[in-house]
């Protein structure tokens, strides 16, 4: 076989795109999960959570496959380290969705009517942040096509700026939700308060990872 064909390694960008789709599958289930949780339908929470666990596992498989196909001797159009940390951040998003699902199935926490609105808005902001991050990730194939420069790169950079704004809004929504929760703290038992802090924290982490994924993408565009 020709040495020329051995020269071409497996492109990591198509699998990166596939990984993004798997992560999206996970995060797309967060809305149904939270809806069921707010309504207090524990059986449905469990069902949706199981779907999230499955999708998260699928994402892990793709992630491992990408890592295994990227030995140090491979020459990429972007820095290998940047690519791997982007992958890690993108995978962390799915992990956050999984952790949230675990939290909600571990204990039957009732959602008090007073915080339902704030919680709902917070989930909206988090998912909006993720939507932008996903748009950024889905550009990866086009970026490889244009060798990570020019108009496409600028477009992605603008999206990353927007992503930062969205994450900031998610932070604000988180603060509102926490404040609201403490305003009714007398009505809540201490274990519930602890659970709420964890649930809010995990949602916030999801948004943070989405923002970080954008940052890593920016490093890929600038670096190497």
């Amino acid at each position, binding site marked *: 076989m020709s040495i020329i064909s051995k020269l071409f390694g497996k492109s990591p960008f198509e699998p990166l795109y596939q990984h993004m789709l798997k992560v999206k599958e996970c995060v797309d289930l967060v809305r149904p999960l939270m809806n069921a949780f707010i309504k207090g339908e524990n059986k449905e929470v469990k069902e949706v959570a199981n779907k999230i666990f499955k999708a998260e596992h699928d994402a892990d498989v793709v992630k491992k496959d990408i890592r295994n196909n990227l030995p140090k001797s*491979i*020459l990429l159009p972007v820095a290998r380290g940047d690519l791997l940390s982007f992958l890690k951040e993108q995978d962390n998003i799915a992990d956050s969705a999984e952790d949230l699902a675990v939290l909600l199935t571990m204990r039957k926490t009732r959602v008090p009517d007073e915080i339902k609105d704030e919680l709902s808005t917070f989930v909206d902001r988090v998912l909006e942040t993720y939507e932008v991050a996903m748009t950024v990730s889905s550009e990866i194939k086009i970026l490889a096509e244009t060798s*990570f420069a020019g108009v496409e790169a600028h477009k992605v950079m603008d999206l990353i700026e927007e992503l930062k704004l969205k994450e900031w809004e998610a932070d604000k929504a988180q603060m509102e939700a926490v404040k609201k929760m403490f305003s009714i703290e007398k009505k809540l038992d201490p274990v519930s308060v602890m659970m709420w802090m964890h649930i809010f924290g995990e949602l916030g982490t999801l948004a943070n990872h989405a923002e970080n994924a954008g940052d890593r993408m920016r490093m890929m565009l600038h670096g190497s």
Partner: protein
Amino acid sequence: MDINLFTLILVISLLVAFYSAVNIGANDVANSMATSVASKALTIKKAVLVAGICDITGAILVGSHVANTIRKDLVDPIQFSDRPTLFVFGMLAAILGSALWVNIATYFKLPVSTTHSIIGGVVGFGLVSVGFAGIKWKVVLYVVLSWVISPVFGGIIAFTIFSIIKKSILSSEDPIDQTRKIGPFFIGIVLFILSLSVIFKGLKNLHLDLPFLEALFISLAIGVAGYFIGKFLLQLYKERKEDPYYQVEKMANPLQVLSASFQAFSHGANDVANAIGPVAAIWAVLQTQKVEIAVAVPIELLALGGAGLAFGVYMWGHRVMETVGERITSITPTRGFSAEFGTATTVLLCSRLGMPVSTTHVAVGNIIGVGLARGISAINLDVIKKIISAWLLSLPAAGLFTVAIYLILKLVFL
């Protein structure tokens, strides 16, 4: 010397040369054409046809320079003027030895180069027959240097070309319009270089030896004509509601076919000598009954070598390209053009300078050049290590095989 023995040797060497040429053609066809097949710019059938034609014309028009280096510049035949038989035996041993080595190496899947093997063979024969002092080490040094320089030089060209494409087309607001503007330049440049190399001192065999200025002028005219034809053809392209970058690649298809043909042409120009270089030496001795170096490489031999290349392409090109084409889909027409342009220009330049370089290694250097310009999604740099070790192995191995065959021939016939 016995005429019958001599004729026998000539027939054997012609057969081995043809066999080598067929091997070279079959192995290397994918280097130039697989990209065009992978991008569906050409069907395998058409690619085989185009590669065959380009290989044979390159061999006939530009093949004599490198053949001369192999037949008389490494080991000076004058040293054998009183014993031409030894020289003939040596050259026969060189083709047999290197062919044997290439076959063994291919069996063990080592990426060896026929160029390195034939040079190893000729130098091996020189060492055992006339000793260390009988070899023109300066030429050997130039040749070995060219093996290092050519992939790097080509890589720089490919890097530059792809960077230009990236800056002017892929990064622009309207990539399709930019392709219409920039594309014709590339077509013009390819045609200019190609015709200059053919017309300037290349047409000796056709008794059309033009002075440099005239050749330059004609080539320029051809290049400009190519520019306008390309401009016209690219205007015909109708924009679709698709991703513009895919459309750019589509528009670059013909450009890539052009550069692939250019590469096949320069492959013929350089690699035909690996097969027929030593035979040319044997032929010259048979013609004159003495060791004569002034004789030109006969066009019949170049044609025979070229036909061997084309035959190899025809017989095995289909299978080789099917397997290779699947693996290299990541090299799109803009990348393919950059790499092939760099490879072809470098190999052609080396051919004109009489430097026997490995076209495959130059191609590898060029693809890495495009990779360094961030054009290819993943390149296994491990391949470089394999190439270098096969390289270091080829020279002594082919040399040893040649020496063994030479000594046997001497023992049996003298």
